[in-house]
């Protein structure tokens, strides 16, 4: 468990606890959840801490209910969240579609495990599509942040609350079983973002004014057209302001290795092994999966000869890379279907086969 919650000292803690403590520090007022491995520690931690702080905690009867409770709380302008994993995040898709249409600041922590179906509890990146392509019905996106370290679990949980409220759009922290379960030293700094004024839209009871309605129902086709154009204008603003990535050694690279989340750590090491062997490799890591750093990848495609996507799934992010580079360079895949990321040496071997 976390002992030092707000200090400049580093503490050793597990990803799941780090996320939970960061949510507390970010001012999360309500947690609603249902257990599922490999993220159950988040709910366990929150049950004690939220009650201690006199904040709201509910052991929901299902993930459907949990996400709808988050919607209810968020409709009042409260900071509210739930956490879950893969097959159970599937159960939340209906509500996430509503929440996006309702423009509510929902925060969802998704700690991926193996799929499809019940799959297994090993780490996985198999929910990239689920996270970035909407997932429920209709045209919409979540904002998706992908941490690669336990420290980033903290920093990006802070950011998830901020972006969700700033843009009134459901925001997902997409971690995986490896990050959730491993321990690393982290520093809990204070929540660094300004509080967002929600007084123009939050439900407070219609004191001295007419009632406000937060709804997705738009019986007239024209209304829905206007709404969707506005929603996607918002996404363009988010793309302009918030797209985030990390890149190393890309300027002179013949081959750029692209990877997100926990997998990217071994890929970064593999890139260094490449350089030691004289292979001019670069490293690129999207931090925001939506918005995806397409523009930067397209620029880099003009300077490099090949891109390789390294993923723990059957190849999902590679589709977005190919769209981004639009045929300028070949994009190859190194992947493992599920489990711990491939070792750096294993990645190196496959790179040598591909170039």
């Amino acid at each position: 468990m976390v002992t030092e919650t707000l200090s400049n000292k580093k503490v050793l803690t597990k990803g799941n606890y780090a996320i939970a403590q960061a949510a507390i520090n970010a001012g999360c007022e309500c947690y609603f959840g249902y257990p599922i491995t490999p993220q159950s520690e988040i709910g366990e931690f929150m049950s004690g801490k939220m009650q201690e702080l006199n904040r709201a905690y509910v052991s929901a009867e299902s993930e459907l209910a949990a996400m709808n409770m988050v919607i209810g709380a968020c409709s009042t302008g409260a900071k509210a969240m739930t956490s879950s994993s893969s097959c159970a995040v599937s159960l939340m898709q209906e509500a996430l579609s509503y929440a996006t249409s309702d423009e509510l600041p929902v925060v969802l922590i998704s700690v991926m495990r193996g799929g499809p179906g019940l799959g297994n509890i090993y780490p996985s990146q198999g929910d990239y599509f689920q996270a970035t392509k909407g997932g429920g019905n209709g045209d919409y996106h979540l904002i998706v942040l992908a941490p690669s370290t336990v420290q980033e679990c903290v920093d990006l949980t802070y950011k998830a609350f901020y972006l969700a409220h700033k843009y009134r759009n459901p925001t997902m922290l997409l971690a995986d079983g490896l990050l959730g379960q491993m321990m690393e030293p982290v520093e809990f700094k204070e929540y660094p973002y300004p509080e967002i004024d929600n007084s123009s839209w939050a439900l407070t009871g219609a004191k001295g004014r007419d009632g406000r309605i937060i709804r997705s129902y738009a019986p007239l086709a024209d209304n829905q057209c206007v709404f969707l154009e506005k929603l996607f204008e918002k996404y363009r603003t988010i793309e302009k302001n918030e797209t985030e990535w990390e890149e190393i050694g890309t300027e002179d690279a013949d081959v750029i290795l692209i990877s997100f989340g926990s997998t990217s750590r071994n890929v970064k090491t593999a890139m260094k092994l490449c350089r030691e062997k004289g292979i001019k490799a670069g490293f690129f890591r999207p931090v925001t999966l939506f918005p995806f750093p397409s523009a930067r990848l397209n620029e880099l495609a003009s300077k490099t000869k090949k891109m390789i996507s390294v993923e723990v799934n059957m190849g999902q992010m590679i589709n977005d890379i190919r769209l981004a580079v639009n045929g300028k360079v070949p994009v190859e895949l190194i992947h493992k279907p599920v489990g711990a990321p491939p070792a750096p040496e294993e990645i190196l071997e496959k790179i040598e086969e591909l170039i």
Partner: protein
Amino acid sequence: MTVQVFKIPDSFKKDVKFSFCPGCDHGVAVRLVAEVLDELKIREKTILAASIGCSVTLYDFLNVDSIEAPHGRALAEATGVKRARPDKFVFTYQGDGDFASIGLAESLHAALRGENVSAICINNTTYGMTGGQLGPTTLLGQVTTTSPTGRNLEYYGYPIKIAEHVALCDGTAYSARVSLDSVANIRKAKQAIKKAFEVQLQGLGFGFVEILSTCPTNWKMTPSKAHERVRDEMMKTFVPGVYKDVTSDGLTRRMR
């Protein structure tokens, strides 16, 4: 001198125009809700979790803050609202399909947790908005578009007695079933709605009213014939009454 004896409730929107079918009991039920909000003077602290079905348009009539819930999830959303803002008055208004079929888990668990919220369920024994299909409260023998020869046990099983199920939950403070088929029963219905709202305001737990209602369009009956059906058929299975009332039973529960 003249005395005003009847007016549009203050909790209604100005120039409100109902979109319900002629003769439907929804209009009466919504008016009763508005009158009770007025009498308890809680319009300005009310947040409604609206539902899906004919009840979806409630937010077009009531001048209160509203959040629209997906089908069946109104009481999960109401839970979220109330836990975030315990000083607000929070209620749902749902049909039988929303409350007792697709949303049964959310409904009963809200009652079991003793959420300090109130719920109104309109039971008209059919899915009205989609054109009169068989629902969780469709009576045995009743013909619907998906029970063309009548509800039989072999294919469909039994209808659910909602008010009784809610009353079985320990977190429920008040559960009643009422009807709108006569002036006397409309007055009783209003008292029940008021009670279900008051138990929330007193912090006693979950308040619930099941309202037996007509659907003349899908029942293919005149409004008066439909009320006869409520009396002659529905009330035999769905017996009106107060099934739980902690304020008169001497039952107590911890206030949150």
